[in-house]
């Protein structure tokens, strides 16, 4: 059962939701209606823990948000404005990725069945890139169909669907409700709400009316929206109003929906199973990023090209003698690492946000620092690959062997530290107006001590100064650990709005 208790949400001085309360029982479908800007999407995002309410609480199965976002998230599936799909993965791969990331049971044939249910079985192995808007929406619905979560939240799920698709989608939602799921679906077209058991109307962030769908035909809704009500209204004229079970001064419409609570299927919520769930989600994240990179080469190829061009320009500009090369080449490598980190990690995070898939990742049940670990590992691997290939090229261009275990250790530590802090800062920078431009401004000064220690340590090895190397290695390790620990700890704060 989903309970929304006096949910209010303000963005700065502007109130978007004001004390919205209602309950959705297992087996019930509630259509959330309201004019543009009424707060429907905000309410769903609050219920899905993507936004923190300014006041009030969301309760699901013994968990309350805030503070227990992870507990609530484990019992909710959200289908947002964006379909959260990766264009370079096939339909089946997309579903498998979310199945593993969210820790859903991997029952044989479940993915095929959900694709079949949404009429996509024959496109299961096709990359999503070639799908129409309606097909993307069907696939997103197939993901909701696959989910065992007891609460389903859907934001305009019929967008882009043809008449047939719309009917199928409504049937799917009814089928899910029949299995005991509590379903909340935000809609704008009253003609599509008749399959719901109850309609809840928001105007100006307030719950102004609720009742059976039959009471909310187009004309009635228009009047309601235009009135811009500040208090709840009774629409079912002549029916006795009764106090809502949520308490407070709200009135609930007389309902005759024939809805009776349906016990949810005995599938345990995703977050509650096994300790290996985190590891499985981590593997899913790595698999997804590496597979996409392997297919699209969106980041690695440009970075390697950049590294090659930089080597060429650096080499021709300075024509370094070996003694000077020992002093300057470390600077080149560590600057390359810094720039590759900013450009590469920034690009990967920007891609997640541009595709709208970042929110899908944030819906991971449990601790979101798992995302930090997964992203940092992928970024670290990417940086490591760029540096190793550049080291090989440097041997040719500068006639200088850099394959020293001490140098490799320094670079590995640098890649680890940089991948962590860049992942955190990229998650922030990409959510700002300046985006890619802001990331190096935030990153370079914070990473400067790490880069300086790396340059000095590498130089010490090339100049055969093991004592100097040892001092800089210790500094690098200390700063690395400090930076990684701090960034790990605060990552949740960056992503929990």
């Amino acid at each position: 059962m989903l309970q929304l208790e006096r949910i209010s949400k303000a963005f700065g001085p502007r109130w978007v939701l004001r004390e919205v309360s209602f309950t959705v029982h297992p087996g019930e479908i509630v259509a959330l209606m309201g004019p543009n800007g009424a707060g429907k999407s905000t309410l769903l995002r609050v219920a899905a823990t993507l936004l923190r309410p300014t006041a009030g609480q969301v309760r699901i199965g013994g968990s309350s948000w805030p503070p227990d976002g992870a507990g609530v998230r484990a019992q909710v599936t959200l289908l947002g404005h964006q379909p959260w799909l990766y264009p370079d993965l096939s339909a089946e791969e997309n579903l498998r990725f979310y199945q593993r990331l969210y820790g859903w049971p991997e029952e044989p044939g479940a993915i095929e069945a959900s694709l079949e249910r949404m009429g996509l079985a024959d496109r299961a192995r096709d990359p999503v890139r070639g799908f129409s808007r309606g097909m993307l929406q069907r696939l997103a619905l197939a993901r909701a169909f696959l989910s065992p979560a007891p609460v389903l939240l859907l934001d305009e799920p019929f967008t882009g669907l043809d008449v047939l698709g719309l009917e199928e989608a409504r049937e799917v939602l009814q089928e899910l409700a029949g299995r005991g799921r509590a379903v909340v679906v935000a809609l704008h077209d009253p003609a599509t709400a008749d399959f719901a058991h109850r309609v809840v109307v928001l105007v100006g962030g307030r719950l102004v009316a609720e009742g059976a769908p039959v009471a909310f035909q187009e004309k009635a809704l228009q009047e309601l929206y235009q009135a811009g009500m500040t208090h709840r209204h009774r629409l079912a004229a002549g029916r006795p109003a009764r106090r809502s079970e949520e308490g407070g001064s709200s009135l609930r419409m007389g309902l005759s929906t024939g809805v009776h609570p349906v016990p949810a299927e005995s599938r345990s919520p995703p977050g509650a199973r096994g300790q290996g769930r985190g590891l499985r989600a981590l593997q899913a994240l790595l698999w997804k990023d590496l597979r996409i990179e392997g297919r699209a080469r969106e980041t690695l190829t440009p970075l390697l090209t950049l590294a090659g061009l930089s080597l060429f320009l650096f080499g021709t500009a300075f024509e370094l003698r070996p003694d000077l090369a020992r002093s300057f080449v470390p600077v080149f490598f560590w600057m390359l690492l810094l720039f590759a980190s900013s450009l590469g990690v920034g690009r990967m995070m920007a891609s997640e946000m541009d595709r709208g898939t970042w929110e899908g990742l944030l819906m991971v049940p449990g601790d979101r620092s798992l995302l930090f670990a997964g992203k940092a590992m992928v970024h670290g691997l990417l940086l490591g690959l760029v540096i190793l290939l550049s080291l090989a090229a440097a041997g040719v261009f500068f006639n200088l062997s850099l394959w020293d275990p001490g140098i490799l250790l320094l670079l590995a530590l640098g890649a680890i530290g940089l991948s962590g802090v860049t992942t955190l800062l990229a998650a922030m920078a990409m959510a700002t107006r300046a985006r890619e431009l802001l990331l190096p401004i935030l990153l370079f000064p914070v990473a400067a001590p790490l880069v300086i220690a790396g340059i000095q340590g590498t130089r010490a090895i090339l100049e055969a100064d093991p004592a100097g190397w040892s001092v800089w290695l210790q500094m690098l390790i200390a700063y690395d650990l400090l930076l990684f620990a701090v960034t790990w700890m605060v990552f949740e704060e960056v992503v929990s709005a």
Partner: protein
Amino acid sequence: MRAWERIWLGATIALMILATLAVFLYAPREAKMGDVQRIFYFHISTAWSGFLAFAVALIGAIAYLRTRSARWDQLSHAAVEVGLVLLTMAIVTGSLWARPVWNTWWTWDPRLTTTTITWVVYLAHLLLRNAVENPETRARFAAVYAIVAFVTVPITYLSARLLRTIHPIVLGPSVSSEAQGQFGLTPRMVHTMVLSLIAWTLLFSVLLWMRYRVQRAQETLEGIEAAAEEA
């Protein structure tokens, strides 16, 4: 301005005048460096107040993330701005002192480099605030960055104690034999230094309080405007 604020401000002005007089009239002339050494009292006081400001920004940031109260964000923001001004003064006074003592306005010494890193980090903090429109997101990101940024502060403190540097360590032993401008503190120098530290700390607190109040007033005004628009 309330009565206790007037007393606070008056005490700060009085102590600042007293400390400045002590620097020029009470503290003895340093034997090797001469009168230029007197800039030391401003340099160390502004540096101390600047780093204290960043510590306050850190406390405000942690408190904001725990409570989500806008007051803590406003305090943290005010502390970063005041801290940046104070650290800029520390860098400028250090540079003025370096010219006659080290024969250069600037050198890439570990202490100077790490101080500059800290300065740039907090400048980036202000740019970050400026790049976020939503007030809640702005406060959250600024708090996170203030915590990450503070990692550079102990690095700056330790740099002159762990690495080979020409920057003198006046308080405590230095490991660097290359320090230039090292001098012993006489009792009168210690009195002047302590007085300067207290006066500048008070000045910092006044500036912080004023900036915090301006920030609060600004956000309250924005709230009133938004409410009026909605109405």
